[in-house]
């Protein structure tokens, strides 16, 4: 059989197999949702107190419950599959990436022919074609491209992200949707957020009820800041193969511009090959062994080793929580699950506590304690380095003499140049007084965070 025929024959065979499962005129053949019905139509001693067994629950799941999945990568593919097979049909998925060949060993909704296409679109197509009745809507976008009106339409949001910044942004967005009447939280404004994360053989799954339970920022210390190698090590005293690779990536590439003005693309094998070669040379200079092509690619792309099984476990736990919350068939996870299968299988379940003065969800104005002689630079560093804040490039504004004044902003070149001298000025020199309110914007949150300046002696 010629190779060209094989894919076509396979495709038709699979379509055959899938079609055979459908009944004339409908998606829901006899017995299709039996395994789900048992939990929706039968009472039980461990169901949520609000649970009422009825046949309408299945209809709610199938026809009305709207779920948003963030990320269509390792966790996202698993989440979409689990949700679709559990009866959810109105699913949206957001992912800003396209498919890379290195994704194929765990992101199973993608095939070699899909490389280069947007993950969200390929994932949606796959699910919609294979699971009759399912209507996944893809969005090849960043989460920041949407505003409250988009997010408000969902009953539950589940995240399979690989970035803490994105998690915090999503967290902040859902907190901004909360409405309070006379200081009391309106429960109908709460959109539950289920968050899953994995790294190698470790993973976690958590349930967040914004405004009610611990949010992402409440437990920011659980995500220690990622350490980059110090510049002096890379520039003049490398010891590890990783130092040599960073030298080629950070210092040599911009200097030698091997491919003209193009920036280093971790997915371009020619680029990696160049970095690899230069890293070997650097390593040889210092008698360092251990530079390999794979290590080079891993360092350049900041690849965290990922394995299908951990994603499967964490996505399973997350999808089950979506089901529990949507159906009330059980009391949801309260509220954090940690998983590690390096040595046997280990899980630890605990209730993460809200932080009283959480900068994201506590509505308590944040305090900044500084002497009036402190320079703005110190405030900036505090915002970035403090373990509970971990801001990336904060923009600080305040109101002086009734007018809005930008003290420092990094993301727009002209404003950065104009406000840079402020960093060396003291707080009093900038006209700030005790009790002054500073508004800080940052990529880690969709809303500005208000800080109150407290002068110390």
């Amino acid at each position: 059989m010629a190779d060209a025929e094989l894919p076509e024959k396979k495709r038709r065979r699979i379509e055959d197999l899938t079609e055979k499962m459908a009944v004339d005129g409908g998606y829901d053949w006899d017995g299709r949702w039996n395994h789900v019905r048992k939990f929706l139509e039968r009472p039980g001693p461990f169901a949520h107190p609000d649970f009422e067994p009825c046949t309408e629950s299945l209809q709610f799941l199938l026809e009305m419950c709207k779920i948003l999945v963030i990320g269509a990568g390792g966790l996202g593919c698993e989440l979409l599959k689990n949700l679709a097979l559990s009866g959810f049909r109105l699913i949206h998925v957001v992912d800003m990436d396209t498919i890379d060949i290195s994704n194929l060993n765990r992101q199973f909704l993608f095939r070699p022919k899909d490389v280069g296409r947007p993950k969200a679109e390929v994932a949606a197509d796959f699910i919609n074609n294979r699971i009759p009745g399912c209507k996944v809507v893809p969005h090849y976008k960043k989460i920041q491209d949407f505003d409250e009106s988009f997010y408000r339409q969902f009953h539950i949001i589940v995240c399979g992200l690989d970035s803490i910044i994105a998690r915090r942004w999503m967290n902040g967005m859902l907190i901004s949707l909360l409405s309070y009447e006379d200081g009391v939280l309106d429960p109908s404004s709460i959109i539950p957020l289920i968050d899953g994360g994995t790294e190698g053989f470790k993973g976690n799954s958590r349930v967040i009820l914004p405004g009610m339970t611990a949010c992402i920022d409440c437990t920011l210390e659980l995500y220690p800041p990622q350490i980059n190698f110090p510049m002096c090590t890379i520039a003049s005293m490398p010891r590890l193969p990783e130092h040599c690779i960073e030298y080629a990536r950070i210092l040599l590439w911009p200097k030698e511009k091997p491919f003209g003005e193009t920036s280093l693309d971790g997915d371009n094998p020619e680029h990696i090959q160049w970095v690899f070669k230069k890293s070997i040379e650097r390593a040889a200079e210092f008698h360092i062994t251990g530079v390999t092509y794979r290590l080079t690619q891993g360092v350049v792309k900041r690849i965290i080793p990922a394995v299908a099984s951990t994603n499967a476990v964490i996505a399973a736990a997350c999808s089950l929580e979506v089901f529990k919350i949507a159906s009330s068939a059980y009391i949801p996870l309260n509220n954090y699950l940690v998983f590690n299968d390096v040595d046997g299988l280990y899980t630890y379940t605990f209730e993460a506590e809200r932080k009283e003065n959480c900068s994201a969800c506590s509505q308590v104005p944040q305090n900044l304690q500084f002497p009036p002689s402190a320079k703005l630079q110190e405030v900036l560093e505090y915002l970035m380095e403090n373990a509970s804040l971990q801001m990336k490039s904060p923009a600080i504004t305040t109101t002086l003499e009734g007018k809005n004044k930008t003290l420092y902003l990094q993301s727009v070149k002209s404003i950065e140049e104009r406000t840079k001298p402020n960093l060396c000025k003291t707080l009093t020199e900038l006209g700030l007084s005790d009790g002054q309110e500073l508004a800080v914007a940052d990529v880690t949150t969709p809303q500005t965070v208000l800080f109150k300046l407290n002068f110390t002696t």
Partner: protein
Amino acid sequence: MLFMVTYMPTLCCRLWGDHGQDTLENAHVCLINATATGTEILKNLVLPGIGAFTIVDGHTVTGEDNRAQAATELLQELNSHVSGNFVEESPEKLLDNNPDFFHRFTIVIAVQLPESTSLRLGSVLWSASIPFLVCKTYGLIGYMRLVVQEHTVIESHPDSALEDLRLDKPFAEFKNHLQSFDLESMNKKDHSHTPWIIIIAKYLEKWLSEHNYKPPQNYKEKEAFRQLIRDGIRKNENGVPEDEENFEEAIKNVNTALNQTKIPSAVEELFNSEQCNNINSESSSFWVMLRAVKDFVHSEGNRDLPVRGTIPDMIADSQKFINLQNVYRTKAMQDAAAVSTHVQRLLQSLGKPPDVIPDNDIKLFCKNASFLRVVRCRSLAEEYGVDSVNKDEITSCMDNPDSEMVFYLILRGVERFYQQHSRYPGVYNYQVEDDISKLKLCVNSVMQEYNLNVNIKDDYVHEFCRFGASEPHTVAAFIGGSAAQEAIKIISHQFVPFNNTFIYNAMLQTSATLQL
């Protein structure tokens, strides 16, 4: 594009390395029953690149297609390099007519098997020394049972391992290297780029000479030792201490650096085991190498394991770091060579050629000597036998009636129910109510047979009837991921598998590992 096509086959996981990937690609997995759980397990094995799988399943899907065939075709799509096969037979038939069929597999994974079949198959695989993984998704409970007689692990990759620096027993080459450093007379740059290992070693020498050759013993002495090091930080013209990060690192590492070098008790136990003391022609490479290391420990090793040869990264200039790293590396190579000589001696005494155990294997073994693990699971026959049941484990867990052990006990009751009624409890709505008392009777009869006096809450029995023997996809997916990773551990001999029963309670998202 051509580059990408040729690169793809080597896209293996950095977590278990090329040699780990090779074991996967040479493995042939048998999956019995392509249910949701079964196909999830296989998916998680096919994706990372298992060489071959065979599905054994006598059930049919709607229409004419056998479930095994349908699953095989869908799974093969995931990875074109995997060879997928199916056998449209029930495992019971195969056990009747051709039990040797199972001998070709690296591991057999069975899903949703009735108790009698599990026991029969368990016995066949135990005699053939083939690892057996039994899995079940029952409502919101997940179950896994690993059955393997003896599983050796050289590369266990522990999460947190102590470094092997030998600062309490510095070897000759290290002492020699230490002499080339004179902290007092060094220039500023060298002083602040001397590795903390050297700093601690130097100050330890000083301390020992002043304290009757006794190292810092308690908190007070360790504090004094830290202060001794802190006093060594250079000061500028105004008497203010300079910023010497390497000294700060030394101070931070005093506690662990002063740890006594000793053989972990787990390794001592292995040294004392039957397999180590009784090396014969049947002994696997693992035991021959272990014996060689034991012999090394009692001769050249001076009662210590071979030096590991790695040091953590630390503030230092490249040359000092590389030189220090090489001192450890060279010593490790020497020790490995000595172990190798012992290996050769043992092989010779067994009439075996020296290349049966390659040098690289010996080096890897020595590097991981502190982390060696052997997992031995009890057989299913032992678990189920009236005289060999692990009563202690069951009763002590059930001191807490909400322990995950209760789910294991009810699953046993469920199997008893199936034997008596030829069906599972609560499958249809009208059965749920009546089946609760029937299931309770079954659970109690199992407890009585084993003479177990435990309290099984009615609520749990009720819930199991509510489950109606369903296989919800979310729970199937959880077990799918867990089981696949355990299978990969068995196949690759890397990382440590569980021993021997894993229960997942999806209602509370908790789990437990029981030794039954």
